[in-house]
């Protein structure tokens, strides 16, 4: 099976390379060319500056949005009165594309990084909130009763029962949010920025630098993939007792 997979990947790459040799349009580079350009770009400081600028926007936004989402979601999950006040507003605004708020955020918080960080945080808030909320609600009643019966206080029940049983759901939400944070970061940078990978790809597009376009694409792909792996790895460390939901 592994052989079939590796074979398929090699086949696609080989077909791509051959097609490029046979003559593809200018904007499709061959895998070998992309690798070469990427290696060249890795040797320059410019690429790292753009990656740094992008991460400086997406990571704080992700952290802020996830933290707010987890805290409010857990609170709404355990406190029915708070739930009745907050949840309708959240579920009402859930299907709304948050990126349309970027222009108004730019007016309020300036054109710099703050508006971008806040729009990323807003987008990341929803998946984590909904998952933390569902996770807290799904805590098995019998576990809560047992803890109460054994004399645990409310704080203890929250910390030792509700939180651990909601944690896998929270992680699942964070996984969605992390992917989303890169999408929103990229979109915000394509719309308006002076640095970052989204900016780089726009500049490359406008000046027909197809090599830079693919370098930027490959960088964001690697970042997204690495971030996801890192999150899954830390999930395995923190929640070792729990099987990952498929």
């Amino acid at each position, binding site marked *: *099976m592994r052989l*079939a*997979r590796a074979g*398929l990947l090699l086949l696609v790459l080989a077909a791509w390379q051959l097609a490029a040799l046979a003559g593809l*349009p200018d*904007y*499709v580079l061959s895998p070998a060319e992309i690798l070469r350009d990427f290696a060249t770009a890795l040797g320059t400081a410019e690429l790292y500056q753009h990656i740094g600028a992008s991460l400086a926007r997406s990571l704080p936004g992700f952290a802020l949005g996830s933290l707010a989402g987890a805290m409010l979601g857990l609170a709404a999950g355990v406190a029915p009165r708070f739930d*009745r*006040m*907050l949840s*309708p*507003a959240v579920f*009402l*605004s*859930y*299907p*709304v*594309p*948050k*990126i*349309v*708020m*970027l*222009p*108004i955020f*730019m*007016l*309020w918080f300036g054109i710099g990084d703050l508006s971008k960080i806040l729009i990323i945080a807003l987008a990341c808030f929803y*998946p984590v909130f*909904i*998952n933390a909320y*569902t996770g807290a609600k799904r805590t098995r009643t019998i576990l809560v009763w047992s803890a109460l019966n054994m004399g645990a206080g409310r704080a203890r029940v929250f910390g030792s029962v509700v939180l651990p049983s909601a944690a896998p759901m929270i992680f*699942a*939400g964070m*996984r*969605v949010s*992390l*992917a989303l944070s*890169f*999408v929103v970061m*990229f*979109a915000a940078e*394509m*719309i308006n920025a002076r640095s970052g*990978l989204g900016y780089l*790809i*726009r500049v*490359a*597009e406008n000046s027909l630098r197809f090599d830079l*376009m693919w370098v*930027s*694409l490959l960088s*964001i*792909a690697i970042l*997204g*993939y690495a*971030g*996801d792996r890192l999150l899954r790895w830390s999930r395995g460390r923190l929640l070792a007792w729990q099987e990952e*939901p*498929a």
Partner: protein
Amino acid sequence: MRFVFVAAALAAWEAAAHSGLWSPLLFPSLEAIAWELGRLLASGDFLLEAWVTLERALGGFALAAAFGVTLGVLMGRSSFVAALLDPLFSGTYAVPKLALFPIFVFVFGIGSLSKIALVFLECLYPIVIMTWHGARDVNRALLWAAQGMGASRAAILRRVVLPATAPFIFAGFRVAVPVAMIVVVITEMVSSADGLGYRVIYSLSSLKTDRMLAVVVVIAALGWLLDRAVVLLRDRLIYWEKLDTYYV
């Protein structure tokens, strides 16, 4: 009681708009936004513009639904297909497909096609993954029973696998519909000469904040209505089971 937060936010907005602390450019009052909204909805041009956006979102979504359900069922019912395609989907899941947009513009042109292609690609993931999980976990006793009673493979697929997978398919649709709206609006904001996303950027550039927020309200309403439509369809079609999760 239910909409306390919504009402409080609107009241705070209106107070900020009338306090005189900020320019009306930053906080246009609700009546100004409502006025612009009325003007937009009364003009045929704008409705056409909204239709362009909706058409792109629904076109990409429909393609993703057709391909995604087929792929997902294949992956769920054949371990060979699953092993072949799983690395592809799980490996590129966290990669922002939006980065491909500039290349799509060169390949498919700057019109609707490049946007529909990107919507298709982004919507494909949730639909494939949810359908796959649903089709994989079909109750084996049901399959055996159908086989034992002599049902053909096609009959089993249609009468057992699809109904058992349907709740998961709709869960995937519910994730994919907002994604479709997000992607369309982003691509229209980035490069377009029509559609609602373009109107947001255009109104901002002409410093008509009230008009921009009116367009935002329309986009929000469209996103909400599409989600309701999926829920309505689901409740009509699948009355026997409910999955209330948004995510895998």
